[in-house]
């Protein structure tokens, strides 16, 4: 369980960097969650940056690289794919 002090701290740091993070390549979301290790949630709270797909830092412009931490708060990059409104596939929303 995350304490409310921890949550407040995460919210403050997230708010300060969110707009900047959302402008980076492949980023579609910024939220508060747990850092993942090998696909499993650890108990460690983090700012979670959701991306359509992961790319090595060497293939990204310096301005698109996501820092590993912000003001001491861990930042975890998680692949979320393409986020879409979930109307049924077909005429208007395309088959998926």
């Amino acid at each position, binding site marked *: *369980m*995350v304490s409310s002090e921890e949550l407040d701290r995460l*919210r403050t740091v*997230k708010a300060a960097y*969110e707009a900047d993070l*959302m402008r980076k390549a492949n980023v*579609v*979301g*910024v*939220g*508060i*969650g*747990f850092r993942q290790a090998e696909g499993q*949630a650890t108990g460690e*709270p983090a700012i*979670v940056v*959701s991306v359509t797909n992961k790319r090595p830092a060497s293939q990204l412009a310096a301005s698109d690289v996501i820092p590993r931490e912000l003001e001491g708060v861990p930042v975890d990059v998680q*692949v*979320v*794919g*393409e*986020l*879409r*409104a*979930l*109307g*049924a*596939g*077909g*005429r*208007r*929303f*395309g088959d*998926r």
Partner: protein
Amino acid sequence: MTTQLIAQARQAKGAHVESLLGKRNVVGVGLGYKISEGVNTGELSLVISVTRKAAPSALAAADMVPKILDGIKTDVVETGVLRAFDLGPRDRWRPVVPPGVTIGHHRITAGTFGCLVRRGEERFVLSNNHVLADVNNGQPGDAILQPGPSDGGTADDRFATLADYVPLDFGTVPSECSIAEWAAGLLNFVAGAFGSNHQLQATKRTDGINRVDAALARPLSQDLVGNEILYIGVPTGVGTAMLGTEVQKTGRTTGHTQGTISQIDATLRIDYSGRSALFTGQLVAGAMSKPGDSGSAVLDMDGRVVGLLFAGSEFATIINPIDDVLSALNVEVVL
């Protein structure tokens, strides 16, 4: 029809029902009028329901149904295999449409009826704007179908009408509206020269930030909709999901599924058929939905409604916190 004749038929049925049900293909025995070449003869008979009719030559003697039993004629009727009435989330539901099943605005594909809500005494169907209002394109009174169009819904399946929605805000893209702005500015200059107070706007300038994708439909009659969510039951209340909260939903495409809240307070860009909308304050869960599940109510494992499902990917499910949905539409969940 004399009561004496009915008593006689009942007696014949009682005496022979067991042996009749033992015969091949027979699935039912009842009393009814004999139908001869499609015409009701008005003659009381023992109606033997069979999965399929077989020629006498194809049947063992013991499997033949006698033409007369204790003076009562028999009538063999083909009914096919009889099954327990078991409707699923993509079926047409009547006389009562429960939350958790397929619905949709007549111009869309299909989404899900989330839960029943009320404003005062009036009850409404809660789902997404993109399910009930066709992404801001719907007009109050538009037909809402059950099942939704993708599941075969037609004008005959109208069960509600669009009542209210929270507009989805796509903001504006400056590079795409500069010419329109210039034109509007010119027209406004002309309008000003003629003393007109009517100023034209190139595009509606908005902050482009959304909290909810939500809408209400008004059922054609108040008893046409239920509050018992398919496979879950009647909600026990309203709650707030936290990190790690276990949640469940019933949706049109994937039925009853469970997941865990992996992010709160999430800011996300969501694709609506090529247009992108920004959402803040969202809940994120793992993969527990597919296209068509939009509009599902998300509940914790104690049956409290915590959110309204509206988006996702192969890895994630995106949920509006229910408090934001209820306050934006000024409604309460019907418990």
